[in-house]
């Protein structure tokens, strides 16, 4: 085969694969949102008309609404806590040279390597053992373990690119360490911080595998509520709930992107 033909085949394959991937990635979300507006009772695509009846049904369902509230609160708290803990730890591993630094970094990322099912079972047992089972704090601690590595990973990447001369320049301009941190370090790390928060938030908000072990009676997160509902029912109510989840995550990304201005979050 001549080099030219080979080249062309390769680039055509590339284009096809890329389009396939984009379509495949977005299709489920688009389908869910589209069917959620159906006026009928069956999940059909394309929907036969437009109505908000299933959104009203969600609004009136105390089960789904309480789960939505719980998930939002949980994700927000997990984001703030893991950001604070993760920022401090990343700062330490970035700024201090010490023996075993790579080991500590690896340790902070290690939850990514543990199948969540194993972690979930372990946490459930352990929380019973220390008497924190079936508590919000137990649920939160579990979510912190899985959001922390995303925060550390994102912040490490943006700190590597950070020019330390900027802080030193500020110091030479008589700025106290606190002012340097407030006016130079944080603003310049802001895009990284925002994207770390987005990852933490959506990781917690959408988590199933861990929450399934840590949720209990009146504290059931939204994804788990959807899961148990889908196992018994199959109607557009779930499409509406899922669409709400989609709206929340897209809104989170959009907001973060706006907040960090022209500098890209992702």
């Amino acid at each position, binding site marked *: 085969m001549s080099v030219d033909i080979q080249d062309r085949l390769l680039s055509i394959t590339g284009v096809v694969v890329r389009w396939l991937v984009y379509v495949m990635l977005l299709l489920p979300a688009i389908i869910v949102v589209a069917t959620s507006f159906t006026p009928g009772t069956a999940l059909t695509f394309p929907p036969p008309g437009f109505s908000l009846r299933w959104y009203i049904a969600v609004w009136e369902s105390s089960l789904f609404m309480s789960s939505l509230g719980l998930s939002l609160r949980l994700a927000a708290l997990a984001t703030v806590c893991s950001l604070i803990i993760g920022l401090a730890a990343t700062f330490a591993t970035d700024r201090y040279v010490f023996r075993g630094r790579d080991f500590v970094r690896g340790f902070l990322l290690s939850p990514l390597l543990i199948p969540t099912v194993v972690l979930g079972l372990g946490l459930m047992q352990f929380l019973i053992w220390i008497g924190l089972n079936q508590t919000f704090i137990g649920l939160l601690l579990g979510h912190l373990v899985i959001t922390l590595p995303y925060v550390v990973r994102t912040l490490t990447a943006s700190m590597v690119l950070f020019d330390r001369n900027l802080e030193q320049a500020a110091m*030479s301009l008589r700025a106290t360490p606190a*002012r340097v941190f407030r006016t130079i370090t944080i603003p310049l790390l802001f895009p990284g911080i925002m994207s770390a928060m987005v990852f933490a938030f959506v990781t917690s908000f959408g988590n199933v595998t861990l929450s399934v072990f840590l949720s209990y009676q009146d504290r059931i997160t939204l994804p788990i509520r959807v899961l148990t509902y889908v196992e018994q029912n199959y109607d557009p109510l779930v499409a509406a709930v899922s669409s709400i989840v989609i709206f929340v995550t897209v809104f989170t990304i959009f907001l973060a992107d706006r907040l960090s201005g022209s500098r890209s979050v992702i």
Partner: protein
Amino acid sequence: MQNIAKGAFAPANEQDFVVSFRNIEKIYGGVKAVDAVSLDIRRGELVCLLGPSGCGKTTTLRMLAGFIDPTGGEILIEGQNVTRLPAYRRDIGIVFQNYALFPHMTVAKNVEYGLISIGMKKAERQDRVQEILRRVELQHLADRYPRALSGGQQQRVALARALALQPKVLLLDEPFSNLDAQLRVRLREDLHGLIRSLNMTTLFVTHDQEEALTLADRIVVMNQGLVEQIGSPEEIYDAPSSRFVAQFIGSCALLEGNIDGDGQFTSHAGFQLQTSASPGTATIVIRPEYVRRSEELPTLRSYRAHVDASDYHGHTSRLQLSVGSDKLLMDARFPVGRKPNQGDLIDVAIDPAGVRVVPQQAQEWRKQNTI
């Protein structure tokens, strides 16, 4: 604007040293990056730390700025021991190699940053910013962001930012290395003029000998953490105190041999030259511009030299010569059409003014593979 140089804390005695390093030392993982450096800088003086990369010059500068803690010794600024003082209480201004302008602030905000630190009132701050931007001819760019500026403009913003606080000493870390050659010369002249007009005490770091020779009042040549020589540009060039300094600054021929009781130098290969030095083993340094055609110096001993290479440089030609098996360099102007070519034999004489004997105590030969 005139009072920028004097600063708010004008000392009683103008003779005071603004900066003193006393036996400053920095050890990194068992290696002495900076070894017993002592140096005094007078008011208004422009001192340059010159050396190959890794010689400890930047570490020394950063220790003065307060970014690196020395492992030994003391640093004084206007007589005050600042060795353990954090950077933000040292009263220094610094211009970084990459300028380190705050990318999220406009030019004016960059310059204003330090003025906010010292608690200056807003109206006064803005006056000061205007004034200093006018001084560096950047007032029309006050609302731009640094990324929209050229390299030369960025450098001037960095300088304005550092000078706005009227520091006791200004530090420049390789300030010209990010600029292209032509711009570099022009900005060097501008900077020189500005610093002189402000009578600013300045310490700068460079690996570029031309920069050091043209700008500095005094040069500190460093190599492998040690100070090799401190002196005026003329002293450094004409009276190098070591092989390293001789070779690092300018070009030269280095010959090793012995000096007898009459001051006659004989190299190991047999090259002989009259000096006024005391007897013993010695290394002599011969600068290329002091090697002349023998008809120009008819009273001096003439040597028959073989031309190994001949390069035209415009204002002069550089010849690489062999006298016996000793090598010499020669810079000279030849009349049109009479430039010797490779393989020619010419007669040369050596102007004794250009011959230096490298002193014995600095003879210890350090590897210089870092050049």
